[in-house]
């Protein structure tokens, strides 16, 4: 509309004055066009925002309104929240599987490292740690295989909690038996335990 007005003005100028005068006015016209178009951008943005707000108000019943700090949902929104969780699981399942694979590889590598720095293999405590770690690796592997069937959110939560609690228990167990490791590698072993602990925590919290 504005452009049409400006073009009308140009036409009238052309009709009223000679060609040279119109050409002199052109930079001013261009400046006016650019200024007007820039003035319109905030208005359009405000209009779009207002429309979005209006839509949000209109479809408020179909949107989730979580607690501000804990992001929990009210009981009245249980069905909607379940739908949301299900969709979130569907979206993140590939990423979670990759994270589990990385965790499995890291755990196997760390087990190999711990076997390499052990003092003696014949001691029962060594066998306990190594067998516990192997059991954990097997559990992780089965979890990876069965993740397609553990699609129910509650089942997944319980399985993840159990698995990571078991992992932390293993890390804790091997930390308590630090005497069995070679003292020359003790600092490195403690660093490995800390890294393993943090890695388990990271995967448990972020990549479930």
């Amino acid at each position, binding site marked *: 509309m504005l452009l049409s007005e400006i073009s009308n003005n140009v036409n009238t100028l052309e009709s009223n004055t000679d060609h040279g005068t119109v050409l002199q006015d052109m930079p001013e016209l261009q400046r006016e066009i650019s200024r007007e178009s820039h003035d319109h951008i905030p208005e359009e943005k405000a209009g779009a925002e207002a429309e979005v707000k209006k*839509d949000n108000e209109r479809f408020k019943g*179909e949107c989730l309104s979580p607690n501000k700090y804990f992001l929990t949902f009210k009981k009245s929104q249980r069905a909607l929240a379940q739908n949301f969780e299900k969709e979130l699981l569907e979206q993140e399942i590939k990423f979670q599987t990759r994270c589990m694979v990385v965790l499995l590889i890291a755990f196997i590598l760390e087990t190999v490292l711990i076997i390499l720095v052990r003092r003696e293999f014949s001691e029962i405590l060594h066998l306990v740690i190594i067998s516990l770690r192997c059991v954990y690796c097997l559990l992780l592997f089965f979890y990876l295989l069965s993740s397609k069937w553990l699609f129910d959110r509650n089942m997944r939560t319980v399985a993840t909690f159990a698995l990571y609690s078991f992992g932390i228990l293993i890390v804790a167990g091997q*930390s308590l038996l*630090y005497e069995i490791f070679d003292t020359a590698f003790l600092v490195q072993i*403690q660093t490995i335990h800390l890294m393993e*602990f943090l890695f388990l*925590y990271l995967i*448990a919290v*972020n990549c479930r």
Partner: protein
Amino acid sequence: MSFVEALVFTMMAFAAHLTIFLIERSATLGNSFLVLIFMGFSLVTVWVGRRTSIDNYNKRQVRVSKWQEEKELVSQLLPAHVISFDILSL
């Protein structure tokens, strides 16, 4: 993981960390600070990620609802051949 679950898990993990590393005699101020900062950042990441997911879900719900509403309105219109027939008859 929901934010509350992450919070509970963090508390459990921190308690486990303190227990383990105190018994192992490797719990230093540096270690504990590192663990605390790491857990804090993880919690913030979970909170922001969760918030973003909820916002995206809400936006999509609004879009789907609008689309359904428009579809219902369009379905109430007369078919194109009926309109053209009326115009021709006029």
